[in-house]
């Protein structure tokens, strides 16, 4: 009954990337191609001349149904460094102001000769819906759909890990925080497993971990100290204010005490463990400033690598 429905939109029959919607279904070779290409672009970002003419004449539309300055800016910088033309569209998502349907918006923009859509939306599956309805030579990059996926974040995190640790194979990676609501966590878990890390751990209180989380291929820890022991990489997830004081968590204070990354908790990890965070950080909630600004933190390099990875993604898609 299911044939065809699970067919991957993302890859052409020859296995080339057409859209980047989710890490699911992408073979390691495709992920590594992106990481290797990003390496070249890192050098570009370090040169005096940061621009290459690869995407000159291409129009890249940032379709942000969910507002985000950081991510949108990163994509914009990446696109401009490839010499592409960038158009930013922030579309109000209030369901009361339902004017044009999502697909009508996409159809109109296609008529304006868009080559690529970078899409962020509050609903899981929005990027897939758009990718199913765009014209043949238009590429869609998912910049975050609801709780589902944030593939470029997972790729830049994988790039960062490879940069500091060399290879993936012997690594234990801990992801700490609100996995239930996190598209970053879902994409990261998938990427790390495909790339062959030794173990992915998720750490959090029961209310913040999906009931079936172990089906994603992770070890589950509710005790942060036990979970951090001996890990090579610690990825802290942002805890949103809306989660506090409701049925999920009583307070930021209790969360920080038991799950916040403080120097003493970090000391349980390997001495050369790196600390990562997709940003923006809530200092004093999920991470202590001493750690965020400390020697093991690679949070700022993540941002630079993020530009190179997004350049790689856009460059590969536009060339396929």
């Amino acid at each position, binding site marked *: 009954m299911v044939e065809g429905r699970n067919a991957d939109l993302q890859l052409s029959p020859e296995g080339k990337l057409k859209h980047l919607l989710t890490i699911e279904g992408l073979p390691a070779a495709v992920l590594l191609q992106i990481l290797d290409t990003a390496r070249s672009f890192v050098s570009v970002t370090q040169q005096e001349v940061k621009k290459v003419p690869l995407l000159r004449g291409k129009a890249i539309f940032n379709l942000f149904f969910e507002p985000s300055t950081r991510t949108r800016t990163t994509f914009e910088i990446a696109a401009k460094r490839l010499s592409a033309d960038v158009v930013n569209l922030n579309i109000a998502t209030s369901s009361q102001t339902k004017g044009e349907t999502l697909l009508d918006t996409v159809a109109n923009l296609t008529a304006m000769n868009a080559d690529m859509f970078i899409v962020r939306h509050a609903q899981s599956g929005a990027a897939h819906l758009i990718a199913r309805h765009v014209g043949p030579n238009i590429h869609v990059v998912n910049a975050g759909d609801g709780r*589902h996926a944030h593939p470029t974040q997972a790729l830049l995190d994988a790039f960062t890990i490879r940069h500091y640790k060399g290879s993936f194979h012997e690594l234990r990676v801990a992801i700490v925080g609100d996995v239930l609501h996190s598209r970053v966590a879902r994409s990261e878990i998938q990427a790390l497993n495909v790339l062959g890390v030794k173990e992915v751990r998720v750490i959090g209180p029961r209310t913040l971990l*999906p009931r079936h989380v172990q089906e994603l291929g992770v070890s589950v820890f509710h005790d942060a100290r036990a979970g951090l022991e001996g890990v090579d990489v610690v990825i802290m997830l942002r805890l949103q204010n809306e989660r506090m004081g409701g049925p999920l968590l009583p307070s930021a204070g209790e969360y920080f005490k038991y799950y916040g990354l403080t120097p003493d908790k970090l000391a349980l990890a390997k001495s050369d463990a790196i600390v990562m965070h997709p940003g923006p950080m809530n200092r004093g909630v999920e991470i202590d400033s001493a750690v965020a600004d400390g020697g093991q933190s690679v949070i700022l390099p993540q941002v630079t690598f993020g530009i190179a990875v997004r350049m790689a993604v856009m460059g590969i898609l536009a060339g396929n």
Partner: protein
Amino acid sequence: MQIHIKNGRLIDPAAGTDVVNDLFVADRRIVAVGTAPHGFKPERVIDASHLIVCPGLVDLSARLREPGFEYKATLESEMQAAVAGGVTSLVCPPDTDPPLDEPGLVEMLKFRARSLNQARVLPLGALTQGLKGERLTEMAVLRDAGCIAFSQADAPMSDKQVLMRALEYATTFGFAVWLRPEDATLSRGGVAHDGEVATRLGLGGIPACAETIALSSILILARETGARVHLCRLSTAEGVAMMREAKRGELQVSCDVSIHHVHLSEQDIGYFDPNCNLVPPLRSVQDRDAIRAGLADGTIDAICSDHTPVDEDAKQLPFGEAEPGATGLELLLPLTLRWARESGIALPRALRAVTTAPLRVLGQSGGSLAAGAPADLTVFDPDARWNVEPAALNSQGKNTPLLGHEVQGKVRYTLVDGMVVFDATLEKSASHHHPF
């Protein structure tokens, strides 16, 4: 009209027989099987060679979208879909706009349906005013207007005291109450079954206990009040087990499942197919298997289509925003046949789920091909394969998880009250008509 249905494979779910024979219809009834009655002069002869003749399908849930949702579908299109699907009687839920909580609305609906001369429409009346779950409707007056039972459709009923009073009031008149078990607080924020697929896709989950906790409350209240309760659209293995237990204790309850839950599971959502956004949600493969087991051992009484046409604009949205529901009147038969084939259940027994069993839920006997039975008949080709495409569907709702799939089983003729209300050969010749 006197009609001779010749040489068909007569499947009688009530009698459990499957025999090739002739059938004779006159004065709205089956007058004979085998030999024509004395003086029988057929005004019409239907050659049913290689076709199956069975009692008309009785669908316990089909939304006709009138009044109020005419942009999704109209009575005309959906009644046509019903008879094209071999459905001769259908029950429509009260969640129209406005809901069926006033006798005038019910009378209008019945009048409109009767004038179309197609399937029989059996409306469910709203259990509470506006379906708000607060104040009782005038159930007796609604029954007089034509309501066959009372229901909350998919509207939540959080105040258990009101529910208890509603059940008690219904027992006063011997009315049945149809309820879909779902605890609104546990399903809040959910759009898919709280399982492996929702976890991976980042979709809000509806845990199985949202159904079982509500089911438990309803079963206890049914016992307390002695009300005749029908549970609609079971979806969980645990729910089926609870029904099995309840029936063993001789509680006056019955239940149905949607044909989609007999075949599909959360796995069919794939990458966010909004056509698989259903209420209740498609659950795990284990839940689906338990539903099949429940049908096989009689715990689950009937299969319905839960026909819910949804317009394109409301479906082609990100999964969580898409309006739930699937079109089903024209798929009920082929999918029931598929279930019979896959489960190895003989057709007379399998077709009970869509003929005799729904009638029993409605408190009626029937679903037989014996002389004297009403001439509500479905004549279909069990081998005909067709592709589920928008153009192939009469319903305005093209929203189905089976879009693009091939199914087997096509209705050729449908008779209601002894009249041919659907003739597939006419449909074909209409499309091949060439102007001079």
